[in-house]
C-alpha cells in the first residue's frame, strides 16, 4: 500500500506534558482518514506537526515519501489545510482573501472562481468576510485549502459550528474529493458519528497515543451486536448454562451471550427452557461505534 503520510515515533512534549506520544500514523493514498480522539488527545498538535507549524520533539514525518524536515516547502505546495477555526482576514472580501493566498501559491487566477464555485460562495465573493456567517467562513476556509489543488487535504474539525445542512454539504464534498480529484483527506474530529459517515480509514488517538488504526470496516467489526437474555432467576440460569459448557457473561440479572449465531442463540434458549427457567426477553443490544470508541479511549492497553 502506498502511504501518503507516514510518521515514525512522532512525539511532542510541552514542558513535562507529553501531548503526542510515539505516533506511527499511516495514511494510505486515496482514503479519507478519520483521525478520532477526545478533546485534548493530541489531534490538533499532530496535525500542526504534519503542517510544519510545530516542531516534533522526536520522531519523523514523511509526506509523499519526502522528509518534512528537509523538504517542508515542496511538500506544503501539495497540501491544503483548514486547522481548527477558519483563519481569514475579516477586512478583506472573500475574493481578496483567496487572492492573498493565490499570490503566494502562484495558482492561476481562474482557480479562485473555481474554488468559490465549489463551496458555493460565488455570490458573496465581493463581500467582506466580516459579515459572513460561521458556515460561510468555514466554506471559505475549505476554498482556501483547495486553492493549490492539493494532493493531501488536512481538515481539523471541519464541521465545527456548521448547521445541519452545512454539515451534510461538507460531508458530501469530503466524500467526493478522493474520487474526483485523487485527493487523500485527513480529517479529525472528536465525534465518531462525523468520522463514521465520511471516513474509509480510522485512527483513534487517546492521551497522545494511537490506540487503533485500520479501515473503518475493521472498526465496525469490533462494534458487534450483543445478545442479552432476561430470564427468571438469572444467577442460577447463568450457572446451569455454564454447567452445560455454554459460556456467557452475567451482569445485573442479565445474561449476555458471546456466541451470536442464530443456532447458538436457539441452543441457549432451548437449554434454559429445558431447565425450567422462563425466558422473558431475547434482545439485541447494539453496541454503537460510540461505545467502542469510549471503551477504546478509556482503556486502550489490551488492544
Amino acid at each position: 500500500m502506498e502511504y501518503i503520510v507516514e510518521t515514525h515515533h512522532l512525539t511532542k512534549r510541552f514542558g513535562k506534558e507529553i501531548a503526542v506520544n510515539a505516533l506511527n500514523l499511516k495514511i494510505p493514498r486515496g482514503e479519507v482518514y478519520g483521525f478520532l480522539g477526545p478533546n485534548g488527545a493530541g489531534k490538533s498538535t499532530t496535525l500542526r506537526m504534519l503542517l510544519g507549524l510545530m516542531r516534533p520533539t522526536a520522531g519523523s514525518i514523511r509526506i509523499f515519501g519526502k522528509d518534512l524536515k528537509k523538504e517542508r516547502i515542496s511538500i506544503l505546495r501539495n497540501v491544503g489545510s483548514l486547522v481548527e477555526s477558519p483563519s481569514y482576514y475579516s477586512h478583506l472580501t472573500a475574493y481578496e482573501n483567496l487572492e492573498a493566498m493565490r499570490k503566494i501559491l502562484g495558482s492561476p487566477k481562474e482557480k479562485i472562481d473555481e474554488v468559490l464555485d465549489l463551496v458555493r460562495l460565488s455570490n458573496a465573493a465581493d463581500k467582506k468576510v466580516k459579515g459572513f456567517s460561521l458556515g460561510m467562513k468555514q466554506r471559505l476556509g475549505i476554498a482556501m485549502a483547495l486553492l493549490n489543488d492539493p494532493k493531501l487535504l488536512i481538515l481539523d474539525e471541519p464541521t465545527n459550528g456548521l448547521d445541519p445542512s452545512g454539515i451534510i454539504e461538507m460531508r458530501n464534498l469530503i466524500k467526493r474529493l478522493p474520487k474526483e480529484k485523487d485527493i487523500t483527506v485527513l480529517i479529525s474530529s472528536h465525534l465518531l458519528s462525523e468520522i463514521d459517515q465520511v471516513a474509509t480509514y480510522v485512527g483513534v488517538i487517546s492521551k497522545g497515543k494511537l490506540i487503533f488504526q485500520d479501515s473503518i470496516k475493521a472498526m465496525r467489526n469490533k462494534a458487534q451486536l450483543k445478545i442479552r437474555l432476561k430470564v427468571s432467576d438469572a444467577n442460577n440460569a447463568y450457572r446451569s448454562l455454564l454447567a452445560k459448557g455454554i459460556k456467557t457473561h452475567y451482569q445485573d440479572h442479565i445474561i449476555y451471550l458471546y456466541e451470536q449465531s442464530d443456532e447458538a442463540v436457539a441452543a441457549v434458549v432451548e437449554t434454559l427452557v429445558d431447565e425450567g427457567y422462563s425466558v422473558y426477553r431475547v434482545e439485541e443490544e447494539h453496541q454503537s461505534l460510540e461505545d467502542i470508541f469510549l471503551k477504546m479511549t478509556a482503556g486502550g492497553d489490551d488492544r
Partner: protein
Amino acid sequence: MIMKLLATDFLKIKRKGLWFLTILGPLGVVLLQWVNYELVPGRREWLLQRSDDDWLFYLQNVNSFTPLALVLGITILTSLAASIENETNAWKQLIALPISKMGVFLSKFTVLAFLLAIASVLLFFFTWLLGIYLDLGAVIPYAQIATFSFYPYFASLPLLALHLWVATVSNNQGIPISLGVIGFLFTSYSFKLPDWLPWKWPSLQNQWDEPLVNVVLGICVGIILYIIGMLDFARRDVK
C-alpha cells in the same frame, strides 16, 4: 518568493488604516509647527527673533516632535500589522503555505520599513512646504531638511525591529502596546537618556553632537535586532 509575500502583505494592509497613519504622522508633526508659528498672533515674530538661523530653528522645532511621532507610529503600525494575522490566528494558515517563516518575517519588516520611509519622504516635503509658507528665508537648506527628515528614520530602525519581534510573538497585544507606551515616555525625555538607549537615537542627540552616529548605530543595531527577531519567530511553534 519575497516579492509574492510582499504583494500579499500590501494587499492585507488595505482598509486597515496603515496608509492613513503613514500620511497622518508627518502631517501632524508639521501641522504642530504651523500651530506653533501661526495660530497666536505675534508668536511667529517672537520665534524668529530667538535665533539667527530661522530655518535651522524651525527644523529643530519640527524635530522635537519627529521622534515621538516615529515611536508612536512604529508601535501602532507593527501592532496593526500583527493584529491582521492575530485576529483569526491566520498565522497557522500563512505558515502552512509553501513559504519560509523567515520570509514571512522579512516581508512584514519590509512593508513597515517601507511605510515609515514613505512617511519620512512626506515629512521632508511637508517640512519644506511649511518652511516656504512661513517665509523663513530665501536660501532653503535642503540638506538640513533631509537630515532632519531621514536621519530619525534610520535611527529608529532598532525600535521597528524590536516592536515587530515583540508584536509577532505576543499573543497578547497589550505587551507590545505597553512597550510602546514606555518607549514613548522614554522618547519624551530623550535629552535625559543615556546615549546607548535606542529610544534616544531618533532625537539625533548624542554627546558628540554628531547625528550620523545615531544613524550608523540605528542601522547596525537594527540589523542585529531584526536577525534576532527573525530567528526567534522562525523557531517558535505556531499555536
